[in-house]
């Protein structure tokens, strides 16, 4: 009790120490006066009375000090003193302070920004309540794209009712394409993207509507009135944040659709499930309507019951899977999903693949921080040398070693504190910018923000940095022998060898770290260039795509032949018009573009050979028009589709080289050439291969090209139409004329986005590019800091050796010799650093091997070029002091000292 009370008093006393000091002064004065009075009463002379009184008090200053110690918080007093002193000295040396704070701000800022990214993607749970219960349920990766990563509606029902591990299971329709919704207001239809979700999607994720409500089972029944939920962003952008939007109906895809709710801004479908895309609206998926027979179309997302582990859920899924049917009407398809129902934590599905990249990124900024610390250590050492005398003096006057270290640590804390504040601001700007890079295909990027954790991390690294860069010079300085320092700091002394050695070690470690960063960045850069140079199977430059609306509906059409004819007529007329526009070289239609959506329809195989269905693979299907291959720049061996390949003619297809090679090898075809051969197609009519085309990278740029099969739009039903044009002019310059033409032909054509094909490729590599750019900029920063460090050390040693150099020049050394000697010293340090750094890189390169593409982690060219770059920079930063050294005037040098 009394202890608490005392603490409070102490704090209070600390706050009002000025008046308390004054009071103490008065008290002491009174005391002294009374003692003098007493002594005078004893008959002493005034002078003697005063002397004895002072003696009995035992030193006024000690009394004051003891009193303050008992009264307040001495350590805080000292801290304030140190702070005041620090600020004064730092202000006096403004150049040093600015450089130090800037270096720290860059390093700490980079660290906070990367921490925020890592925190968002790896550490923080997904932005849903009890996110750890959420699982993504999918088959292991296979060769047939999305169709093999999804399940049928029958399978969904069986899994949902047959599993006990889940509170509920939901999913969404995985094949929605961008701009699949056209909103018809007053003018041209507005394209938007909507996703069909199973009605319990939001309750399972734990997302509530910000306004209105989410779906109910009734919204997804046959014959239900069409409803839509708007995402927050679309509501704000398209509907101007209309507060009364709920209940209003709009013409969407030709149907009056009622808005029943608006989602909170915190829910971003694309950020979690489809990185790099934007989703505007959510619509209910009617599981019992036409999608019933569409095959594999939904993804599974489940919420585990509390206490159920992932292992239990997996074991159960393995038991349920054999009972799931692809289609209940075809009992032979039951058991198709055996071993293909595997729950994984949703978080792992969303960002698991990025773990390695993020760890590399984190290490890179960690290295930057270390380099910055080493650099500052160096700068502080240089300052320490200049201040050695000051500290020696303080030591001689009785300051303890701890007290001096404390003073120096206060200085470094002030520096790193200032750096942290500035760095925090830098990071905030960077993070805000990153959060708006919707085009980068990284999950959760839009949810990026600076939070309490980032603030905490800032404090941690600021203190860490301060201790790391402050301790070495601090101990060094405080530990020095007083006599030696006083002597050493005197003018004319030659460089203290020990001092120089510490600084050299620091520079070498700095160069080594920079070298590791550079090698890492170099390897990533090389990989990125390799990725850009991948033969995609199509020519992405000077080509663009635009989504085209068409209506091929023919009433009373029984087998789809009539609508196929109508469709062919529509497409033919569009291609004729667009193809005649100036600047258009070729044009064609496809339903899916590469590097986007995909699906598979089974595995056509030569007659008489049983297809290897157990491989669970199938070629991806594209339904295209004549001329599409030419528009994309994909080479065909054989012939292209023609408009005469009609619904009643022979069924024709094109396949890609990989699939052709696989079939030929598997079926042991004698000549290996499939062109002109028929393939059997389940029960349907034979498919005649009329052409073999180049492998197109359909899923990713850096992945392997899989199997593809192309059907003509005149015979199969496409699931949409993307018009691809190849142009002789930059594609964007043709956007207006093409869109105008499309709108002339069909007034319902929305003002769809005109997408250069190059953009699709860029989007596909944006994640890799993002990491590469970050690591490369960190490496550049590291290189700059290392150069600064080298410059600092060499120029300092030149200054210290001015006299020595002066003597040597007086004895006949030429300017060239002096320059060479300084440069050699620099290069020697850099070389040691490079050797150590390269060695460390060789050992740690395996760590980033999985992030590289067609690049060995021990790629000699990268190592050599990075080493040369580093040495060149080192040479350059050593050249300035070397040049200065060669300009030393012997007489002046010898004179001044």
């Amino acid at each position, binding site marked *: 009790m*009394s202890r608490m*009370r*005392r603490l409070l*008093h*102490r704090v209070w*006393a600390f706050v009002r120490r000025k008046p308390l000091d004054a*009071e*103490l002064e*008065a*008290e*002491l004065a*009174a*005391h002294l*006066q*009374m*003692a003098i*009075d*007493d002594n005078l009463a004893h008959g002493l002379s005034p002078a003697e009375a005063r002397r004895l009184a002072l003696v*009995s*008090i*035992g*030193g*006024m200053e*000690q*009394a*004051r000090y*003891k*009193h303050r*110690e*008992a*009264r307040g918080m001495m350590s805080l007093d000292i801290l304030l003193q140190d702070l005041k002193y620090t600020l004064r000295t730092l202000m006096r040396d403004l150049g040093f302070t600015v450089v130090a704070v800037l270096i720290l701000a860059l390093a700490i800022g980079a660290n906070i920004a990367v921490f925020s990214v890592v925190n968002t993607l790896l550490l923080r749970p997904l932005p849903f309540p009890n996110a750890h219960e959420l699982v993504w349920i999918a088959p292991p990766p296979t060769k047939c794209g999305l169709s093999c990563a999804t399940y049928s509606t029958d399978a969904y029902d069986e899994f949902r009712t047959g599993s006990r591990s889940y509170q509920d299971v939901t999913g969404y329709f995985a094949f929605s394409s961008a701009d699949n919704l056209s909103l018809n207001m007053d003018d041209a239809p507005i394209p938007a993207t909507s996703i069909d979700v199973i009605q319990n999607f939001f309750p399972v994720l734990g997302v509530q509507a910000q306004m209105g409500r989410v779906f109910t089972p009734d919204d997804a029944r046959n014959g239900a009135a069409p409803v839509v939920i708007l995402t927050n962003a679309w509501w704000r952008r398209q509907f101007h944040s209309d507060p009364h939007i709920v209940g209003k109906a709009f013409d969407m895809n030709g149907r009056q659709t009622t808005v029943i709710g608006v989602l909170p801004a915190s829910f971003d479908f694309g950020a979690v499930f489809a990185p790099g895309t934007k989703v505007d609206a959510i619509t209910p998926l009617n599981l019992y309507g036409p999608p019933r027979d569409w095959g594999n179309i939904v993804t599974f997302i489940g919420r585990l019951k509390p206490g159920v582990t992932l292992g239990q859920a997996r074991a159960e899924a393995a038991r349920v899977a054999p009972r799931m049917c692809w289609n209940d009407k075809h009992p032979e398809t039951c058991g198709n999903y055996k071993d293909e129902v595997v729950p994984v934590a949703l978080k792992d599905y969303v960002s698991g693949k990025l773990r390695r990249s993020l760890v590399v990124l984190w290490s890179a900024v960690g290295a930057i921080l270390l380099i910055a610390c080493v650099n500052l250590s160096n700068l502080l050492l240089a300052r320490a040398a200049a201040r050695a005398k000051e500290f020696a003096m303080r030591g001689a006057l009785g300051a303890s070693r701890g007290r001096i270290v404390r003073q120096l640590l206060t200085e470094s804390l002030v520096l790193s504190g200032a750096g942290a504040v500035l760095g925090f601001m830098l990071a905030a700007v960077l993070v805000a910018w990153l959060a708006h890079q919707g085009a980068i295909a990284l999950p959760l990027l839009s949810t990026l923000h600076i939070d309490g954790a980032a603030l905490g991390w800032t404090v941690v690294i600021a203190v860490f940095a301060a201790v790391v860069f402050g301790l070495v010079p601090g101990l060094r300085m405080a530990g020095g022998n007083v006599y030696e320092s006083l002597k050493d700091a005197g003018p004319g002394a030659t460089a203290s060898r020990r001092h120089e050695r510490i600084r050299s070690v620091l520079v070498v470690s700095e160069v080594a770290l920079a070298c590791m960063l550079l090698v890492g960045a170099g390897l990533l850069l090389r990989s990125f260039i390799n990725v850009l140079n991948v033969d995609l199977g199509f020519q992405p430059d000077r080509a663009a795509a635009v989504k085209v609306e068409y209506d091929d509906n023919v009433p009373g059409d029984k087998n789809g032949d009539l609508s196929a004819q109508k469709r062919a007529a529509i497409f033919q007329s569009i291609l004729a018009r667009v193809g005649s526009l100036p600047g258009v070289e070729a044009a064609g239609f496809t339903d899916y573009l590469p590097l986007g959506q995909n699906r598979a329809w089974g595995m056509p195989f030569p007659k008489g050979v049983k297809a290897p269905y157990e491989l669970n693979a199938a070629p991806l299907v594209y339904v295209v028009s004549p001329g599409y291959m030419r528009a994309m720049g994909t080479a065909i061996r054989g012939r292209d589709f023609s408009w005469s390949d009609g619904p009643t003619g022979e069924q024709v297809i094109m396949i890609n080289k990989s699939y052709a090679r696989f079939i030929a090898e598997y079926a042991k075809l004698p000549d290996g050439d499939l062109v002109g051969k028929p393939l059997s197609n389940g029960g349907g009519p034979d498919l005649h291969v009329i052409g073999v085309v180049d492998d197109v990278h359909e899923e990713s740029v850096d992945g392997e090209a899989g199997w593809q099969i192309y059907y003509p739009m005149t015979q199969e039903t496409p699931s949409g139409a993307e018009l691809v044009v190849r142009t002789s002019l930059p594609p964007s310059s043709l956007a207006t004329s093409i869109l105008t033409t499309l709108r002339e032909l069909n007034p319902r054509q929305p003002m769809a986005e005109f997408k250069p094909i190059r953009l699709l490729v860029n989007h596909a590599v944006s994640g890799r590019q993002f990491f590469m750019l970050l690591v490369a900029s960190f490496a550049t920063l590291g290189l700059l800091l290392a150069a600064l460090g080298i410059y600092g050390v060499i120029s300092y040693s030149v200054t210290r050796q001015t006299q020595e150099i002066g003597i040597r020049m007086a004895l006949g050394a030429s300017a060239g010799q002096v320059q060479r000697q300084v440069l050699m010293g620099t290069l020697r340090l850099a070389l040691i650093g490079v050797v150590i750094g390269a060695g460390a890189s060789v050992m740690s390169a395996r760590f980033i091997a999985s992030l590289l593409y067609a690049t060995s982690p021990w790629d000699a060219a990268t190592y050599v070029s990075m080493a040369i770059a580093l040495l060149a920079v080192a040479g350059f930063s050593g050249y300035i002091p070397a040049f200065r050294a060669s300009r030393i005037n012997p007489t002046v040098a010898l004179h001044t000292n």
Partner: protein
Amino acid sequence: MVLQTLTVMGSVHGYGIARRIEQVSGNGVLLNQGTIYASLVRLEQRGWISSNWGTSDNNRKAKYYSITAAGRRQLAADARYWERLKDVMERVLTMDKSAAGADA
């Protein structure tokens, strides 16, 4: 010591306390009078003494300290403790050899 002094003398200033302790201890405790102020501030912060400014006999302004109720309680407790300690020490120091042998 300070508390006892204050109990006996009532309200006293720092100089008075210092002098008093010197006199009572028969100069057995020779303290730097200045250090008395560190003890006083400690006792005051613990709430055992209180202080206010007053005027001395010969008209000098001085800070007067007096003991509080809590201080008296503390003094009583401390006194008991010292009494006990004194008794124990006395017994230990006057112990003769036979008793020591028996105890062992």
